């Protein structure tokens, strides 16, 4: 038994550097593995319930169906796919992969609210953003100073020794060390200022050759940007620190000047002016500090995180990846639909041919013979009553046999009991006609009504074929038919304890039924080891 999943044309390669999605359909499945149909796409909401008819109002009691049947009760179509229904190829990035770049406005609100004016401007000296910036500058000054000194030294050594071979590895090492340091700095800014800077991706070629990798590190713009940040960030932080200690201290001193003016040689007439200057300074330094912090954060975003262009590229890449996943899924689905449709049309065509042949070879021939018999009887009626009676007798038998044949044929086209009484009753009828004792196990007959008419019909015909095979070939002494509806999937099992070894050869009855089931997005699995009985399992979504 071979897999029915077609191998679609491979999707175009994803952009370099991205994880190639493991497309489930392109992986060759083992020839012995049972077929796994690609997961169907969810049915669009609002799909009408097939076969649902409106209930007739004012129907007298006797004319109402005794039981709910799929033909008379509008069945609810569940539009949600079954759990685990969505396919996401392995390695596909999650939807939240790159944080979109924060706009200046976003950062403004977080680290420099005073610049937005209004109440925040008045609150600047006591605002949380101001004091967060003070703590950031205090800590950052020492950290960046240390980092800068170390990096500049390392860079200096590397360049000095570049002539000798040892400089190049040192430079590579420096650039590599800059990465975790950048991570540390991003974490610090996040902790102290509350800004979230997403980590960038580094160019790391996967080629095994060492020098290629080293070259990759050397030509990686991000790592160099980290080095640049160490210096530029240090500059900004020094400015912030000066603002806080010099301008902030001066403003404080001027505001409280009246308290110790006596100990200085400043004339008292100047005091009001100095106090005003102090008060103005009290508002100026937080404003300036917040502005510098905003500059710092933008700098960090550009040099420690993604550059703006790269972020856009990354977002585009994720979108493209998602689109490609959808496209390849759609392609798999399209191939599957084309296949099942072709086979369905073929199966329907075969069925029509079979019906035509049965009618032609059976009922039609019999009726012709009947005409002949009746003609003979008519001619003989006057002269030879005995012969006429014999001919009529023959004709009568002929008619009864024709009727029996037509009855079986019509039942094979569509069983009335399925429409009138639902799948449970139809399965019982099949079991009753089977020469091997069959147990029908339907734990919840009412639930089967949730399955659509096509699903029920498919289940019925699969059972009919399976039981025919059980009676003819299996040698089993008993068989079991089990039908359940769970998670809006109709599951049918026909199990026998016979000799096994059954196959669904192309062109066989089971093969035709498989395409019938697959058209409904269902699966048909045949498990029949030689000497180990046969288990036929069919699963069809209820909404078909």
């Amino acid at each position, binding site marked *: 038994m071979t897999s029915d999943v077609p191998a679609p044309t491979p999707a175009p390669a994803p952009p370099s550097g991205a994880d190639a999605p493991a497309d489930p359909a392109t992986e060759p499945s083992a020839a012995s593995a049972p077929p796994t149909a690609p997961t169907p796409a969810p049915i669009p909401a609002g799909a009408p319930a097939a076969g649902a008819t409106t209930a007739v109002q004012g129907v007298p009691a*006797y004319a*109402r*169906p005794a039981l709910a049947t799929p033909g008379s009760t509008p069945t609810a179509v569940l539009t949600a796919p079954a759990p685990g229904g969505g396919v996401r190829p392995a390695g596909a990035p999650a939807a939240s992969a790159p944080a979109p770049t924060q706009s200046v406005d976003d950062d403004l609100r977080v680290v420099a609210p005073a610049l937005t004016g209004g109440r925040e401007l008045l609150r600047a000296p006591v605002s949380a953003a101001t004091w967060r910036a003070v703590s950031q500058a205090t800590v950052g000054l020492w950290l960046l100073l240390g980092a800068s000194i170390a990096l500049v030294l390392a860079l200096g050594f590397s360049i000095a020794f570049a002539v000798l071979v040892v400089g190049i590895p040192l430079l590579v090492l420096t650039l590599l060390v800059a990465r975790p340091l950048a991570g540390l700095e991003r974490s610090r800014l996040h902790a102290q200022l509350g800004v979230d800077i997403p980590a960038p991706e580094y160019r790391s070629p996967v080629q095994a050759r060492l020098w290629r990798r080293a070259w990759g590190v050397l030509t990686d713009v991000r790592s160099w940007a980290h080095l640049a940040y160490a210096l530029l960030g240090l500059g900004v932080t020094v400015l912030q620190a000066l603002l806080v200690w010099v301008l902030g201290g001066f403003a404080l001193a001027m505001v409280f000047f009246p308290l110790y003016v006596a100990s200085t040689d400043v004339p008292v007439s100047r005091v009001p002016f100095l106090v005003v200057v102090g008060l103005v300074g009290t508002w100026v330094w937080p404003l300036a500090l917040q502005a510098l912090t905003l500059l710092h954060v933008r700098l960090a975003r550009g040099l420690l995180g993604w550059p703006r262009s790269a972020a856009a590229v990354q977002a585009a890449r994720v979108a493209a990846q998602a689109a490609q996943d959808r496209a390849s899924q759609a392609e798999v689905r399209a191939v599957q639909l084309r296949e099942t449709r072709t086979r369905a049309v073929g199966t329907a065509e075969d069925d029509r041919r079979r019906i035509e042949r049965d009618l032609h070879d059976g009922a039609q021939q019999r009726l012709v013979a009947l005409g002949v018999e009746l003609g003979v009887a008519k001619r003989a009626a006057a002269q030879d009553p005995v012969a006429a009676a014999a001919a009529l007798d023959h004709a009568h038998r002929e008619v*009864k046999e024709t009727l029996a044949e037509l009855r079986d044929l019509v039942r094979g086209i569509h*069983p009335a009991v399925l429409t009138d*009484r639902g799948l449970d009753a139809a399965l*019982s009828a099949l079991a*009753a006609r089977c020469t*091997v004792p069959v147990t029908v196990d339907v734990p919840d007959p009412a639930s089967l009504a949730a399955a659509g008419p096509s699903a029920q019909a498919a289940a019925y015909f699969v059972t009919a074929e399976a039981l025919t095979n059980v009676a003819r070939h299996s040698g089993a002494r008993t068989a079991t038919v089990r039908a359940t509806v769970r998670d809006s999937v109709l599951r049918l099992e026909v199990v026998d304890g016979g000799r096994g070894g059954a196959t669904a050869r192309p062109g066989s009855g089971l093969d035709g039924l498989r395409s019938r089931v697959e058209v409904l997005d269902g699966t048909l699995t045949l498990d029949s080891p030689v000497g180990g009985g046969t288990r036929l399992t069919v699963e069809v979504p209820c909404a078909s």
Partner: protein
Amino acid sequence: MRIVIAEDSVLLLDGLTRLLEAEGHEVTGHKTADELVAAMSRADALPDLLVTDVRMPPSHTDEGLRAAVHLRSIHKRLPVLVLSQYVEQRYAAELFAGDVRALGYVLKDRVADVDEFLDVVGRVAGGGTVIDPEVVAQLLARGRRAGLDALTARERDVLGLMAEGRSNAAIAERLVIGLGAVEKHVTSILTKLDLAPDGDDHRRVLAVLRWLEHAPTGGDRP
């Protein structure tokens, strides 16, 4: 007898009417179940027999069967003969759920066997129970139930005929054996299947049917 027929096929209605009128019955025909029920509710006297098809307009599912069950629930004593293109045990179970006197359920094809059909008409109108051999065959096909294995081939034949609602005399005639032999077989069957020995034909039919439908299947689980 006064016979009412509900049958949507004009050809068959016509054929049945002529057949029964030739036998000296008085026949009224209806083409839908609604028409039938309406006519029955207007009628001053019940007919001696109601013959109804299962599938009729408007929905062509089972309104004939439902009309029959409905009318039987109102008129307990109304003899009803249901004709069907298919006989399935599920329909039979619905029809024979209550009292089984004067109730018949046979394949439409049996009409072609005029003598047998007239016999069925007579038996149902006379208060008998008739179940199509096809239904019995279906029930027996589930076959090798615990207990059935214990029956001899001849006893199994007798059981089938019992399930069709035939009297001992009819079974004797059918199998070309003496009445005493039939009685012996019946007693043996009832004993083997653990059914109450009961002289009443109808209750006997019912017991046999119930047993066939619900007896546990035998055979070892492989």
